[in-house]
């Protein structure tokens, strides 16, 4: 599987649904720190340019606040793409985060698990 398909598979997102409205970028608290903006992230995936994403700062600047996921009118949800890119990078570096049996004790029932995973991935690097 190539990288783009891997991103699509991990995120479950079809980036072609994006209508380029920019609501993600408008919502993003880390916008100014990002070299590739959230809405551009989608375009990069569409254009098969995963290399650039991997080398960007953005992947690590996303706070996983999920505002873009909440608000995206087209279910494209760039946050998921960014998270997927991050996951691919981590896998490449051979860094698995926590071991599976450590997790349950740490869980708060009310917290979205995806957010947790995303945060773990990010801050343990």
């Amino acid at each position, binding site marked *: 599987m190539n990288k783009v398909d891997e991103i699509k598979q991990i995120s479950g997102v079809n980036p072609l649904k994006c209508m380029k409205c*920019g609501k*993600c*970028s*408008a*919502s*993003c608290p880390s916008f100014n720190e990002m070299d590739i903006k959230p809405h551009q992230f989608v375009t990069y995936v569409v254009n098969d340019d995963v290399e650039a994403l991997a080398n960007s700062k953005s992947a690590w600047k996303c706070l996983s606040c999920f*505002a873009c996921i909440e608000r995206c009118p087209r279910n494209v949800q760039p946050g998921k793409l960014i998270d997927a890119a991050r996951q691919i990078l981590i896998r490449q570096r051979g860094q698995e985060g926590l071991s599976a049996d450590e997790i349950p004790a740490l869980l708060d029932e009310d917290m979205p698990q995806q957010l947790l995973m995303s945060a773990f991935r990010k801050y343990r690097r």
Partner: protein
Amino acid sequence: MRRIGVFVCHCGSNIAATVDVKKVVEMALLEQGVVHAEDYPYMCSEAGQSRIAEAIREKQLEGIVVCSCSPRMHEATFRKCAERNGLNPYLVEIANIREHCSWIHKDMQEATEKAVILMRAAVAKVHLNAPLLAGESAVTKRALVIGGGIAGIQTALDIADAGYHVDIVEKEPSIGGRMSQLDKTFPTLDCSACILTPKMVEAASHENITIHTWSEVEKVSGFVGNFTVDIRKKARYVNMDKCTGCGICQEKCPSKKPLNEFNRGLNNRSAIYTPFAQAIPNVPVIDASACIKLNTGKCGICEKFCQAGAIDYKQQDEIITEQYGAIVVATGFDTIKLDKYGEYAYNESKDVITSLELERIMNAAGPTKGHLERLSDGKAPKEIVFIQCVGSRCSDDRGKPYCSKICCMYTAKHAMLIRDKYPDTNVTVFYIDVRTPGKNFDEFYRRAVEDYGVNYVKGQVGKVAPQPDGSLLVHGVDLLENKQILKKADMVVLATAIEPNPDVRKIATMLTASIDTNNFLTEAHPKLRPVESPTAGVFLSGVCQGPKDIPETVAQAGAAAVKVIGLLAKDKLKTNPCTAKADELRCNGCSQCANVCPYGAISYETKQVNDHGIREERRIAVVNSALCQGCGACTVTCPSGAMDLQGFSNRQIIAEVDAICR
């Protein structure tokens, strides 16, 4: 055994060049029942048809097969020819040996073999064809229009002008609809009321139009040409004949709590009210839930002040029943609820409003008497942000997947009007795309930008955050500059998606008219029959069929009227005889067929039958041939084969199958 004649057309060389027509004739003569077969260069010509006529007479033909071009070309021609010569037109079958044979095959032997098989299938079928007679049904020369907005009014006027009586049923106290709530209209900026009210008056005074306001359709039965409709006239508590429309009751009414629907709830009205000054009829209604007298028995002030003695607290809902030949649905739209869009703070801040609310604010009869001011503190806004596509083009469950079509233009209109009247107010429009296909539309939008200095920013707004100082912080983005924008605004206007009036689902069910996943009524054909519902006799006008602006609505309203006039102009309706028919001895009365009928053409009756000596009461399906369009969905659903389609019967199709496979 029927006496069949087979006529093989050369179509010049179109057929004869690849199909050995003589061979087809020769083979036809070997088929069972074929007593005559011949070929001719052009069967459809006058001379060709006269050969058919002659054969019918001389050979006493009881069925005809024409091997020629597609039935889509000349089936009607040959059917008429048969009818002129005393043969039922439905005893004609076409074997398509041109489009389906000679034109696609090169090898003469192969094409001839296939032509023979197609001829055989047609002969096998025609042996089983039944002589069918197109039925007739009378037409009630009166139309019903459901909905009294601009679409309904225009349709009614056009039908009435053609000399047919029309009833308009409107659930609000006045006709006028959404258009009456608008201030100005794009792209000409005419005053909406100035162009609408003359039409409302015309409708009210038209001798062929009866208006039932404060009324709803309760029940519909019947079929094209013969609908019977129950209309509920809700209790108004005001005698329409006596009321003079002086308005004193509204002035004196002590109950001033109810939200004013006409002003989108931005201010209040009295319990007895007319929705707006130019209402038609200019007769108020009493809002029973807010009326003190009706709720507590005390008060009665309006009655006391009414010099005409028109107030009648004892009035009851009334059901009237009318007959119609055609029904037009013109139920219009509403804006969607914004509860799911927390990020725009619509429910939090009074200064975040929808565009329709802005129309009311800008209108001289509106809650602010036409002054542009913030509803929170009455101050004039200096920074206004418009947000496009709120709830439109959304594939999530918060909004609608379609484009609402009118927002781009009315936002340009609003922006332009504000900049014109309040030049020191800045206007910013956040947009995804600006869509302006329409006469003078793009020019209009460019004027807003070029002549009025409206600031268009490509990018959607992510969040509107009310600030402690009463301002609104708009988190937007400029995608062209690739910059995030934080903008302080005094007022935010949301171009809210529109959706069909929620009542339409109920109405569509009553009419057995189909509806799509977005609750828009489905047209009979998306391109070729855009103003007709697939249910015969039901027509569509305005936004109930799909988003559209006023000029389009009026155009469609006119088109719907023409279709209605065309229908009502007929004394009798010829019905397609190729309809479904239930064999009462085989029918189980199980209702499965009715479940798949798109036209509501199947009903059930309990009937005494004599099934070869067994006499009993049975529940039996009955097809209304005026409603049935002959799709055949029911025939396959029927497990016993009781339901069959005339002209395409089970045995006919099986005969064709057998002939092809033999």
